[in-house]
């Protein structure tokens, strides 16, 4: 990759991120040429501090780390201080401050992967590459790391090898992948020997299955090309917004805010510079619906964004694509290019004078918090992905201070279909207050993991029947920030009024350890908290430690009250939705699986904590004093 000259690209058309082939040792940034290459990368992004994430991703890809020297150069080029650059570089999981291997293998350690053979896959990689997880080989060719949910729970265990996805990793499959990589094969050619000859869409689907198991009427059934956009193009802003409002469409990313209202607020702003952002930072563990929409309905996503742009008067848009979905980038760029060629993006869209709109893709770099709309905007501005203070709200002052509509991938798809088929059509599906259909990502202990497009209002049991989850003992609805329900709650309904969800349904059989699942998810939130506010930064660590105490059998009944008190402080004082929902795995299992907690506690006797081991506690002192305890050792005299 070093030999390839990197062409100059405009801001709207970002250069493709090349991937290493494992043969060339990565440039460590120690030679005299590194500085020039970093200057070139900065220049390619206009030395713009708002493109800091792109610059750092390009430097990471080229040199496999962000060295202190690189940070100095980037700071100089972009007019930032070194500490500001370091603040960004140290925030994102996919940016590294120590050298990573030319091939970096990130194995997804989601709980679903753990229950489908993660340990075998890990052992195979470790043995075949001769390095342990979390380390880099001495020759700089390979790194092995864990990473949280990469959106492949329906085909777990899965891993990212540089940007390439490998799924259904058995011990044998992992071993042969590792062996081939060691022999010098590129990750791409392991997906297909003719990888380069495949179309971008074929490349995406060659590595990852869609697993669409139930197509509904709105999104995954037959969808006429651009019918919604053609109708929207002859409507006024007010008419488009009124249609979306009348449909009752609510955001599909989790918060469920009324989409039409969001568009109306942004449309009402006088600022002529407005933005439409697509939130494709699908990071909730167990969710993978947007992956499928971006693969199979990319045109519909962009159509919806274009309609939103017309509704609010935006000229520029952006798709924030999570770093884990880098394998979809070429496909999305290809769809964008084709739409530009067809006059569906760019100037005078559909020959409507003044209907101008174009989109660029912003890659994320491994940060769940960037799915929060303020954090997403911060990330696009070249800052650490920290949520913004609200108010002002993004629809009033968002990206670079301009009105910005941020909607989920699925929400844009729905909006485009509503403009085509009408508000009444959409309203006729689902339930009161939860109109239309919803994509559900179903994974875990069920026979048919995959994507289901279903109307709102179905029961958990109905969904389990479809997915073959007859052994289910616990179902996590909405991912860890949602609700864990047990068998006695399977009649509850999937809707905004009962079990609200962005679509993740993770099924657990009776063989699974609820506390292990809870501890995993708390660890996820600890890893993904941005750290801006005290309760989320510190409180989640304490929650996780307490669950560990239960798992070790060292908890007493007062720890249940402690968990509730701590959880309530975190929920009520956190700055954004992450901390407002991170205690949910604990609270919903305390509510629905109380026996799991009571069965693991020990009661105190005689003023002593049952779990307190005095002998262990004084053993260090005994060693230092070189004598036994007068009080606690019966044989003191010996």
């Amino acid at each position, binding site marked *: 990759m070093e030999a390839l000259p990197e062409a100059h690209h405009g801001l709207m058309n970002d250069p493709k991120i090349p991937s290493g082939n494992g043969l060339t040792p990565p440039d460590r940034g120690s030679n005299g040429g590194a500085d020039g290459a970093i200057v070139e990368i900065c220049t390619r992004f206009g030395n713009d501090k708002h493109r800091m994430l792109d610059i750092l991703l390009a430097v990471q890809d080229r040199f496999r780390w962000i060295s202190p020297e690189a940070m100095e150069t980037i700071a100089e080029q972009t007019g930032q*201080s*070194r*500490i*500001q650059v*370091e*603040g960004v570089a*140290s*925030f*994102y999981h996919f940016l590294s401050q120590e050298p990573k291997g030319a091939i970096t293998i990130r194995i997804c350690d989601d709980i679903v992967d753990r229950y489908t053979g993660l340990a075998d896959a890990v052992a195979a990689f470790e043995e075949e590459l001769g390095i342990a997880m979390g380390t880099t080989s001495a020759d700089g060719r390979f790194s092995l790391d864990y990473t949280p949910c990469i959106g492949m729970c329906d085909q777990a265990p899965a891993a990212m090898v540089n940007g390439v996805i490998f799924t259904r990793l058995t011990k044998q499959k992992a071993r042969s992948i590792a062996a081939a990589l060691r022999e010098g094969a590129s990750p791409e050619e392991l997906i297909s020997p003719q990888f380069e000859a495949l179309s971008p869409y074929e490349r995406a689907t060659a590595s990852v299955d869609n697993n669409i198991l139930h197509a509904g009427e709105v999104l995954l059934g037959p969808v006429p090309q651009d019918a919604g956009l053609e109708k929207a193009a002859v409507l006024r802003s007010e008419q488009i917004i009124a249609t979306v409002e009348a449909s009752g469409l609510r955001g599909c990313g989790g918060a469920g805010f009324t989409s039409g209202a969001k568009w109306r607020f942004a449309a009402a702003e006088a600022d002529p510079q407005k933005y439409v952002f697509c939130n494709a930072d699908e990071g909730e563990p167990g969710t993978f619906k947007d992956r499928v929409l971006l693969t199979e309905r990319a045109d519909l996503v962009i159509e919806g964004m274009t309609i939103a742009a017309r509704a609010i008067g935006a000229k520029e848009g952006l798709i924030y694509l999570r770093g884990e979905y880098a394998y979809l980038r070429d496909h999305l760029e290809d769809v964008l290019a084709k739409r530009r060629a067809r006059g569906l993006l760019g100037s005078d869209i559909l020959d409507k004078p003044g209907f101008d709109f174009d989109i660029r893709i912003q890659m994320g770099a491994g*940060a769940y918090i960037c799915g929060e709309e303020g954090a997403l905007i911060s990330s696009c501005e070249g800052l*650490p992905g920290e949520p913004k*203070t609200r*108010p002002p709200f993004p629809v009033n002052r968002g990206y670079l201070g301009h009105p910005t509509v941020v909607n989920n991938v699925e929400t844009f798809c729905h909006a485009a279909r509503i403009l085509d088929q009408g508000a009444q059509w959409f309203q006729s599906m689902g339930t009161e207050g939860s109109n239309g259909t919803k994509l559900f990502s179903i994974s875990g202990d069920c026979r048919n993991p995959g994507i289901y497009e279903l109307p709102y209002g179905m029961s958990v049991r109905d969904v389990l029947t479809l997915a073959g989850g007859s052994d289910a003992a616990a179902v996590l609805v909405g991912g860890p920030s949602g609700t864990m329900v047990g068998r006695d709650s399977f009649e509850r309904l999937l809707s905004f009024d009962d079990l609200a969800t962005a679509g993740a349904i993770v099924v657990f059989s009776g063989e699974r350890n609820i506390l292990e699942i809870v501890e995993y998810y708390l660890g996820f939130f*600890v*890893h*993904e*908290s*941005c*750290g*801006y*506010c*005290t*309760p989320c*930064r*510190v*409180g989640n*660590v*304490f929650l996780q*430690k307490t669950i560990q105490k239960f798992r070790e059998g060292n908890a007493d009944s007062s720890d249940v009250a*402690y968990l509730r*008190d*701590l959880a*309530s*402080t975190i929920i*009520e*004082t*956190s*700055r954004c939705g992450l901390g407002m929902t991170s205690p949910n795995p604990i609270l919903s299992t305390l509510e629905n699986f109380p026996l799991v907690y009571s069965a693991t506690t020990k009661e105190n006797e005689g003023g002593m904590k049952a779990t307190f081991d005095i002998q262990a506690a004084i053993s260090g002192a005994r060693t230092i004093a070189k004598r036994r305890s007068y009080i606690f050792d019966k044989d003191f005299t010996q």
Partner: protein
Amino acid sequence: MSDAAFTFTIDGVTITAEPGQSIMDAADAAGIYIPRLCDHEGLRHQGGCRVCTIKANGRSAAACTQPAAPDLVVENESEHINAMRRNLVEMLFHEGNHLCPICEASGNCELQAMAYRLGMTEPTKFPYLEPCRAVDASHPDIALDTNRCISCGRCIRASQDVDGKGIFGYVGRGIHRRVAVNGPDLAHTDAEVTDHAMSAEVCPVGCIIRKRVGFSTPIGEREFDGGLIGQDIERKRSQGKGQ
């Protein structure tokens, strides 16, 4: 938005606010103290420590960043809110190493003073995280012990916005997020002891240490030895009443 002043209530007391004021700005002016650690007079509001959490029309918000609004009903000094604040202060104690008897900031420390104000008078319930970060004593006049840092970011804002230097910044994420200096150590920055960021009032704890002056004011005569934190603000109201 109209420029006219308006009123709202905090714990039943009607106070006047100007458009653009935060709940905390208005409360300060009216002589009602809302506990805070990351907020400091003359610096941008950050809303990070969350100690100033109040209930505005029943919803939690940080008083330092939440705009005051006409007829808002704000709850400040309730048992429930103060219990949450105490939890937050305890979290900060346990996140770092805060050993008051051996800390030169004792008596001047806002974290310690806040603990007293909120009644943190018995052993705490959280586990200690016991960080072990190197002390940066490289600078001739200033030392940094970030084991005592509460990540309030006041030094970052003071250095950036008041001194125009940008000596400090946050690095890392989550529980690993911390304040760091713009260089290999403090001696290799343009930090000076006369910077606002280095002044006794900006760092609320004993993290930024001015060398050779630590005990020039004896224990017993220090800022919070005479009374609770926030009484300077509350005094405004009691004086107002007396007139």
